[in-house]
């Protein structure tokens, strides 16, 4: 419990809570319209009125960042969800099959998982985006499939570890059916490292999703998204630094907070 009270952890929790509010109720933080601009106020530097300044169309950058949180974070969360489900299922089955009927299957599948980990995630995501079409949801699928390998590996390692524990053997001896052992004993005890992994991957996914959006394969222009906000500020980098630096700083802050929490989840036992 004391670990939760460390200042960096507290700040991280605060940032994540802020993200949740930004994603689900952006009006609470930025009541303005993210799409409406005042051409008279174009490219204003940050001030009390416009916290993050304004862009080339006179739109308030802070409002756009807050309203862009939904797409960025939802796509990243979906990616981790997909990766966790697909990878977790593969790892669970491989770990459970090993030593019974499927040692050979386990070996072959895990070598494919190695390859999935070795191929750069962003390239995998890009080939998915090119096949499916552009948009935040195909990015999420691509990034998720890229993350599936890591989930499969850690889930399998955990299942193998827990399988050797006495309470699992006891349950098997007592006549609990294999699926019951898997669901009631192995899965809950293998969950923590997988959760820590999920938090870590969420940070990576926020980075990947925003990078692919930055490249221009995300949401269509007027809608705000973190990566495309930075991309839009690119043309004004010489004169209007706030267009790239401030949305970029928000991404950094969120990733740092999530990574920090991943470490806390991983180490508190």
């Amino acid at each position, binding site marked *: 419990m004391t670990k939760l009270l460390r200042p960096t952890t507290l700040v991280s929790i605060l940032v994540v809570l802020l993200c949740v509010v930004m994603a689900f109720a952006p009006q609470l933080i930025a009541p303005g319209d993210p799409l409406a601009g005042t051409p008279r106020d174009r490219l204003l530097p940050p001030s009390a009125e416009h916290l993050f300044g304004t862009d080339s169309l006179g739109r308030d950058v802070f409002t756009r960042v807050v309203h862009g949180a939904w797409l960025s974070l939802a796509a990243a969360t979906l990616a981790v969800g997909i990766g966790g489900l697909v990878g977790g299922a593969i790892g669970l089955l491989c770990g459970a099959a090993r030593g019974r009927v499927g040692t050979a299957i386990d070996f072959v599948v895990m*070598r*494919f998982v*190695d*390859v*999935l*980990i*070795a*191929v*750069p*995630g*962003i*390239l*995998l995501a*890009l*080939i*998915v*985006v*090119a*096949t*499916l*079409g552009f948009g935040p949801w195909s990015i999420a699928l691509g990034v998720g*499939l890229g993350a599936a390998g890591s989930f499969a590996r850690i889930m399998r390692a955990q299942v193998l570890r827990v399988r050797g524990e006495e309470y699992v053997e006891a349950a098997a001896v007592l006549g609990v059916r294999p699926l019951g052992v898997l669901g009631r004993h192995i899965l809950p005890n293998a969950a923590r490292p997988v959760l820590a992994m999920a938090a870590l991957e969420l*940070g990576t996914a926020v*980075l990947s999703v*925003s*990078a692919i959006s*930055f*490249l*221009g*394969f995300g949401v269509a222009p007027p809608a705000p998204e973190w*990566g495309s906000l*930075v*991309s839009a*500020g*690119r043309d004004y*980098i*010489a004169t209007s*630094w706030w267009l*790239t*630096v401030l949305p*970029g*700083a928000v*991404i*950094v802050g969120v*990733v*740092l907070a999530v*990574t*920090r929490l991943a470490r806390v989840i991983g180490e508190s036992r």
Partner: protein
Amino acid sequence: MTRAGTALRLVAPKVLQFAFVVWATYTVTFLLVRVLPGDPVLAALAVQSGDATTVDPEQLAALREQAGLDGSLLEQYLAQLGALLTGDLGTSLATGRTVVDMIAGVVPGSLAVAGLALVIGVLTSVVLAFLASIAPWRWLRDLLVQLPPLGVAVPAFVTGLILISVFSFSLGLLPASGSRSGDSVILPAVTLAFPVGAIFFQVFITAIREAEASGYVFTAEAKGLGRAAVFGRHVLRNALLPSVTSIGLLIGYLAGGTAVVETVFSREGIGRLVVSAVLARDVSVIQGVIIVVAVVYALAALLVDLSYPLIDPRLRPGKAAPKPAAPSTFSIAPEADALTSSTTDPQNGAAK
């Protein structure tokens, strides 16, 4: 057992592993492209001719054949695999050029950036790790260890744009874009060096901590060796192996990172090729790049594997000492730490 036989027994499985990685990568990308809904040929045509046009069936069939996308799935799979064995990665749907040509044309530019980034990243993290281990002030040591998460968390496109705005626009020292002049490689390389250095630093510092906790360092300190001597002679050499293992990981990271960095700095290269291929929905080019990256990755893994005996005498064949299992290059370094945490220090023990 003859020398040649021993060498063969050592090398053959690694070569087999190399072939497997390339085959599996091809299979994974093939499945991805075919299982996902959407016809790559239709998509590429739609981008080329605008959305409103109807597609001429003959043109479609011709393009399909040219790209090796005709026939049943199994036929396509085997035909492309056969072509792959002869070094043929297929034909681009958008440009009609062979993928091998397109990739070969842009490799040097990317290689320069990635190579320089690797050198800068690794050198910087070695220096920082040295400082983090021997700095006399505790606050500095603690601060340095906190750096890596920051290096990974800052997106490359943000780092790149900030570097451009400072060094190109404000100071006017380095070019902001293009690849014509020699010094245009510096900013992209520095941008990539941040995350790469951060990852390497993390692996390296873990290995150093592991070595520092071992018995031979305790002995060396008890003998009265200075901090720098202990670090250079005992800690550094034992921390080398897991760190070398992580180079494979870094190559994957570099290959992925070029997509963003080359876009930010408008440089010709593999990453730019991929980005324009995605824009043109040109799946065969992306698939080709992924396979080339896998080949490079597997080659690096092969070289790293084969270099273990050179780095660590304990891994040389024919030594009577109990042989620890060589860490697989696929595994991230912490798993390989078992090797360095053994309490004997044969590299230096014999010299005393």
